[in-house]
């Protein structure tokens, strides 16, 4: 790891101000630090945001669940509020990495990194989330732009993620046997006004499956999934899974998710 300056901010304004030049925010560091250790990434400044108290915590209202950016995965998975309002989100958080990662890793860090095989981005898309930042609100549909790419601007800090509370929802993940990241993860949500299905792991960026959403909107049952044709076009093909296999697994995971709703 190359040397860097370590700075702590006490509020988001200060954090944004400190983030000039080759700087980045440090929350749990579960992706950032390994990348730096491997010398795949180097920064002059790391801005610690874990001391900003307002960024951590879980708030629930009748319509939405809001999770602070630096809330750890283990807090989410063990939260009674999450368990009651969106139990599938607790299940998702409980399936990220291992206990050490879950005790350090944060929801804000996960979506800001936008790893194509990360779990949280699928929850954001499926649960029609709003990303609250230090500058604005961004809908999940506009937030995830591409591989490791988001709509965040330089110095813009995620403050919280607000999920719509669905009528029912479930997440099914087919993990890579090596890394246990998602080869395919499918998040299915029956919201008040729509059915959303988000797929992670399968392509260069999390996406919504129009085919699955259309069918499940008509009939929210696992049986309709058999007759859906999921195209392998545009899906990842690598040593772990071909595009064709991923397309098949999207259906298997979608069925599993709908069945467990």
């Amino acid at each position, binding site marked *: 790891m190359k040397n860097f300056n370590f700075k702590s901010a006490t509020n988001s304004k200060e954090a944004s101000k400190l983030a000039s030049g080759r700087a980045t925010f440090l929350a749990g560091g579960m992706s950032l630090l390994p990348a730096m250790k491997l010398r795949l990434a180097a920064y002059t400044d790391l801005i610690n945001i874990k001391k900003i108290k307002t960024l951590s915590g879980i708030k629930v209202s009748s319509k939405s669940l809001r999770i602070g950016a630096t809330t750890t995965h283990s807090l989410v998975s063990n939260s009674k509020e999450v368990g009651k309002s969106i139990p599938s989100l607790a299940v998702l958080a409980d399936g990220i990495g291992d206990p050490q990662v879950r005790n350090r890793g944060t929801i804000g860090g996960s979506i800001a990194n936008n790893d194509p095989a990360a779990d949280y981005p699928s929850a954001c898309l499926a649960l029609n989330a709003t990303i609250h930042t230090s500058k604005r609100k961004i809908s999940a549909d506009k937030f995830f732009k591409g591989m490791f790419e988001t709509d965040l601007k330089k110095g813009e800090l995620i403050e919280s993620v607000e999920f719509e509370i669905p009528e029912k929802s479930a997440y099914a993940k087919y993990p890579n046997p090596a890394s246990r990241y998602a080869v395919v993860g499918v998040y299915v949500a029956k919201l008040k006004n729509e059915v959303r299905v988000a797929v992670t792991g399968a392509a260069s960026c999390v996406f919504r499956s129009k085919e699955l959403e259309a069918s499940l909107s008509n009939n929210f049952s696992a049986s309709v999934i058999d007759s859906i044709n999921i195209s392998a076009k545009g899906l990842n093909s690598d040593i772990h899974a071909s595009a064709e296999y991923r397309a098949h697994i999207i259906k*298997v995971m979608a069925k599993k998710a709908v069945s467990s709703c």
Partner: protein
Amino acid sequence: MANLVGSKVERKEDKRFLTGKGQYTADINLVHQTYACFVRSPHARAKINKIDIAKASSAPGVVKILTGDDLAKDKIGGLIAGWKIVSQDGKDMKVPPHPPLAKDSVNYVGDHVAIVIAETLEQAKNAAELVNVSYKIQKAVVKTEDAMNSDAIYEGIDRNLCFDFLLGDKGKTDEALSKADKVVKLDLINNRLIPNAMEPRASIGDYNPSSEQLTLYTTNQNPHLTRLVLSAFNAIAPEHKFRVVAPDVGGGFGSKIYPYAEDAVVAWASKKIERPVKWVAERSESFLSDCHGRDHITHVELGIKNDGKMTALKVETIANIGAYASLFATVTPTYLYAPLVIGLYDIPVASCNVKAVFTNTAPVDAYRGAGRPEAAFLIERIVTEGAKEIGMDQAEFRKKNFINKFPHQQCLIHNIDSGDYAAHLDKALEVGDYKNFENRRTQSAKKGKLRGIGFSTYIEACGIAPSAVVMSIGAGVGLWESAEVRFNATGNVSVFTGAHSHGQGHETTFAQIVGDRLGVAIENIDVIHGDTDKGPFGMGTYGSRSLAVGGTAIAKACDKIIEKGKKVAAHMLEGKPEDIEFKAGEFVLKNSNKKKTIGEIAFACYLPGQYGEIKSPLPTGVEPGLKETAFYDPVNFSFPAGTHICEVEVDQDTGETKVAKYTAVDDFGTIINPMIVEGQVYGGLAQGIGQALYENGHYDESGQLTTASYMDYTMPRADNFPQFKLDFTTTPATSNPLGAKGCGEAGAIAAPPAVMNAVIDAVGTDVSMPATAEKVWNALKKKGTKKVAA
């Protein structure tokens, strides 16, 4: 004194390992130490035009940067292949030079180009990024099957062929196959594995300019051999001025048998800069540059008579040995492999042809089982297909063909001293509840899962090895073992062994042998290994040899102690040595109540005379001291064998395979510590199942290792396994007085065919290793298997 041999004595070494007090090479820090980072090749194959170190040399903290030119100037030799194989045309194998730092070309990704030495590790790494190497990239030879049809990587090595080896009579085998009622044929791939010891490799060179003594601390399975090779072939330092220490080592699995380029370079560099040089591999470096294992392509044919008797076996193998011929790389796919392709069956004629090829990949060498897993895989796969072809039950077909008289001279090389193969097969059928398998298959089908069963009745040749035999077939060294048993004056015992423990629990097992033999409490025995300055020259640990060979040397040294003790006791008890009996730590004069404990005898040996009240004279002509050395050269290999039965469940939707039940019944001869043996079997099974279902070292077309981290290389984890069911049968080895056969590699040898036979039984069509979910899904799809109803 309780019987230590045969009991589950807790491991003496575990306290320090489990409390973080182990002393591994990376834990050692020396005064004025410097830190090394290796510049490695990013290309699979390239000529080096120029290495520009100017910018890097002036970077902060840099002490020295050395390249292949510096090595050549100092006349430091290359790494050697330790076993000469002769091709069937009578010509010697061909091996390319293997300089520890590349001279003109690099030949795999991770190949060593330069060493950057600095005051801190970060400075070394920063400077290494500034070393500017100009490469002329060449087309890499990557795939095993393509190697012989590709451009020659090295001048003078046509078709990239290291050797074309033949064991057995091919003509007679072909003839017997032509007369067989049925001939079963299979094409098999034995996938490349990356060893992944828990502790990455590390080395520290420490030259003392005052004594002119060079010390190398290194993660190694046989420090004496490392010293010998680095002295004799690399000219790093003369043997008497060179100490190699392999302290606590966290797993080897074969990958730490050999001295590596890094060992030679840090030792040499330390001499040059007269300061300690420390290098510790990062995990990525381990993936790239530890020797890999397996990587065979094999065609096999088995002849069978209609009555179910096997008549002939023919094997054609291409073995990928990577970019260079590593120390044991040439013996692994030949003499450790070919004699065992006929397994534990009485097959009258067989031949095994092995073509070893060079490719632009990491060198391939011995990895847990070394040749024997590859042999067991092919014979157990084809025997399984043979039983299906002939329409016999898997167990019956095997039994009909088992060797059942001992000693048995097999048609290839080995003379198998002992065994009872029907005994472990029968026990496995019982322990594994074979008779109710169909019920379990029905139960799985109710869950929508396909269940399959697979057998593996394996044999291995261990206790490596009789020196005269191995040296007559190309070994560069004899494979005996040494021991020294040193009684201290106060009655406790220091035992020095030439074997090396890196997880096997020698400090306990060997102490159990000594404790029983000499009647000394186990807490008063210390087993010392891993330091060339302490014990006598030894040959290290690999090939499940430590107990059968090293343990026997220890037992022999103990017997010498007793012999000397008898002379001393006779003198003290006023009898004749032949009238002294030694039992449970006491020397007793026959037909009398006179006796001396071994502690009293030791005391007398060190204090021969009057000491206060104690009078302890030595007989005339007997030297003081009580310390004996023994060297043991085995008379034969030992032959562990066993039956493993695996049951798998396959998910039809995803193709995911889970091991549902695993039964292993092994015959390791006499067992010293059943708990340690069970641990060895567990570890071996994890690696064997890993090979069958998960692990695969994969290079892309350009020769980049695409599985160079745990993100991509699937190491099996605890939740991939069921509770294994273990049991044992015992036929003692006749080739060593302990009756021990060896247990370290069995799991890794037996498991891959057991698992794959089960997968193929479930799926109903061939699948190659590793049987990943997608492969199995594709096989199911291709076969159009009707789904079992959930």
